[in-house]
């Protein structure tokens, strides 16, 4: 084997670190969009590595839907404290109270789509000119067309048919006042890469990702966790199951899978053998073929 050689995870890490440093060099007020999910945790970990021994020079933005897993919130606060990083919280409840967003009604109601309003308001309020996220191109077909540096107009909208070409490792972050960028340093990572990286780097993640006993209901081919926001339909009932979550979003839309994987090694093995995509358990993607593209055009993450 060649002496001067990086394995695939090292090369992906070097690429992501390069991009995070470009963000800090090219923008005035960049921030990391932090959801408490594994991808934004990995991005935060990469930011720690990119600027060490300085602390992470970007604040974290959390869009709080109010429909959270308790575990996610505890994890978020511990991470913020440990890294001595600024936390900006945008509250969907505030947007609703101010009349900027309207609550969905009905049995599958969720606050997923409302996040867009709060996210754009938060970006504007704090004059954020680059919002760094953990989206990956392998996740979803609209995301497969994303650039690393993805331009948003003054309304926060994405124009997928008119994206700037992105060549070599040259990233064009030039923009007019009021516009901003979304930046995706782990675009080229797959779900498998993320899990292997978490294992290799021994990164702390919320306990929700590991198999645990939980009160759940079976709906739309997935196990939805118990929360005060879910109303049972006729014939449905809460049961205790050993489950884990492959992705984390709002408690109302994140379904779990039956699993015994209670260590990182077992999760990696389980992901390697999985026959369906991780977003298969996400209610927000099941609202039509181009649900993700339609939300992204509006400014969704």
């Amino acid at each position, binding site marked *: 084997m060649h002496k001067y050689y990086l394995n695939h995870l090292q090369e992906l890490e070097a690429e992501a670190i390069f991009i995070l440093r470009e963000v800090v060099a090219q923008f005035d007020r960049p921030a990391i969009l932090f959801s408490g999910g594994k991808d934004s945790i990995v991005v935060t970990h990469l930011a720690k590595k990119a600027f060490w021994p300085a602390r992470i020079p970007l604040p974290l933005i959390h869009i709080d839907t109010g429909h959270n897993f308790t575990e996610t919130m505890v994890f978020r606060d511990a991470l913020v404290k440990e890294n001595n990083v600024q936390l900006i919280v945008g509250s969907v409840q505030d947007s609703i109270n101010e009349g900027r967003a309207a609550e969905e009604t009905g049995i599958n109601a969720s606050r997923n789509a409302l996040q867009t309003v709060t996210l754009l308001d938060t970006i504007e309020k704090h004059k954020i000119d680059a919002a760094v996220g953990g989206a990956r191109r392998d996740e979803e077909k609209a995301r497969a*067309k994303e650039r690393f540096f993805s331009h948003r107009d003054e309304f926060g909208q994405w124009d997928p048919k008119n994206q700037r070409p992105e060549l070599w490792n040259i990233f064009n972050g030039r*923009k007019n006042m009021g516009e901003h960028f979304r930046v995706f340093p782990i675009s080229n990572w797959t779900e498998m890469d993320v899990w292997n990286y978490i294992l290799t780097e021994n990164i702390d993640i919320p306990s929700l990702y590991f198999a645990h006993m939980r009160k759940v209901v079976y709906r739309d081919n997935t196990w939805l966790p118990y929360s005060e926001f879910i109303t049972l339909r006729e014939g449905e009932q809460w049961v205790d199951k050993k489950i884990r979550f492959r992705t984390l979003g709002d408690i109302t839309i994140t379904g779990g899978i039956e699993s015994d994987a209670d260590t990182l090694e077992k999760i990696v093995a389980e992901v390697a053998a999985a026959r369906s995509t991780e977003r298969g358990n996400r209610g927000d993607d099941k609202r039509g073929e181009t649900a993700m593209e339609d939300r992204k055009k509006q400014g969704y993450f």
Partner: protein
Amino acid sequence: MELLRFTTAGSVDDGKSTLIGRLLYDSKSIFEDQMAAVKESSERKGLDHADLSLLTDGLRAEREQGITIDVAYRYFATPKRKFIIADTPGHIQYTRNMVTGASTANLALILVDARKGIVDQTCRHSYIASLLQIPHLIVCINKMDLVGYDEQVFNNIVEQYTEFASKLNVNDIRYIPISALNGDNVVNRSANTPWYQGATLLNTLETIHIGSDYNHIDPRFAVQTIIRPHTNEYHDYRGYAGRVAGGIFRTGDKVTILPSGLTSSIKSIVTFDGPVNAAFAPMSVSITLVDEIDISRGDMIVKENNQPNVSQDIDVMICWLNAKGPRTGAKYYVRHTTKEVKAVIKEVVYKMDINSLQRKEEDKEIKMNDIARIRLRTTQPLLFDAYRKNRTTGSLILVDEATNETVAAGMIVD
């Protein structure tokens, strides 16, 4: 596990989607719910087979019109390697998209229909692969099933292509007879081509030597940003953060900083995981120096006896990417490594006819998808190498100062 980035090129109906679909499917990279969605959409469209192009065509407009608009990135892995495919559309704006996909690729797959042989598209795609200096080319002669797996057909195309390729600048070209539809020589060796002794496509992708694709000879380190922790523990720490673009940097090495020309030596090469003795492309590290020198973003750390070119007059082969062509005397931002300067197009030397590979010295009006040689004059000197020596320090983009759009991709000529 190593990472191999490749791009695919071919004309309409040559079976590119089928080939990618097969690579993904046979390497078990297509999930059941993805496949179910593709089957459902195909049925709704009245197709009797699962249209694998629906896996890559993600945008609403693409699905409605049944065309691919933009480069799509696909991922798969085998136990030996991880692969990133830049899947570029065959027809619409093929030059612009293929240049984009090729800019980061180690390898290009060129598809040829065995019934048609070498066509104009094949020549264009091969020329772009050569222009972008993709180190490895695999010519897949597809639809062998439709020519009865005839060795003579294969040999004729190889001969034709070899002759054409002598005009190109590619060192490593391989030829594989395949049928993407039936899977011959894609993942498994075919019993239909006993006369073919070479490796299958997947085996070639898994084993082709890419370790020397990076330049490990000429030390180049463009500074991205300066890391200053301002803490008690790291009070005087000043780390120059960047990604090695070429050569090897070692602790203790004497270095020269450009453009100032000041010299110092490397005190340490810092990473979060601890100091390293040597840094090489494409590592992201921070370098600290023994002396306190004023260094900022866009400066380059090199070695005294191996320096890049320093000039304000730069000859570039460009591919124009924007619907609006260049205006005479218009100024652009040049983005090169981590530096941004203003520049003006002084002269269009010639345009390239990429079908005949002839230079067009009379028609010099540059339009979208054109490839041309131009002369740039920059407001400040750039620190560069020829693109053929280093793809990082030899590449640049032009950004329109009015719209901020990336309008051209440039490869520096020596």
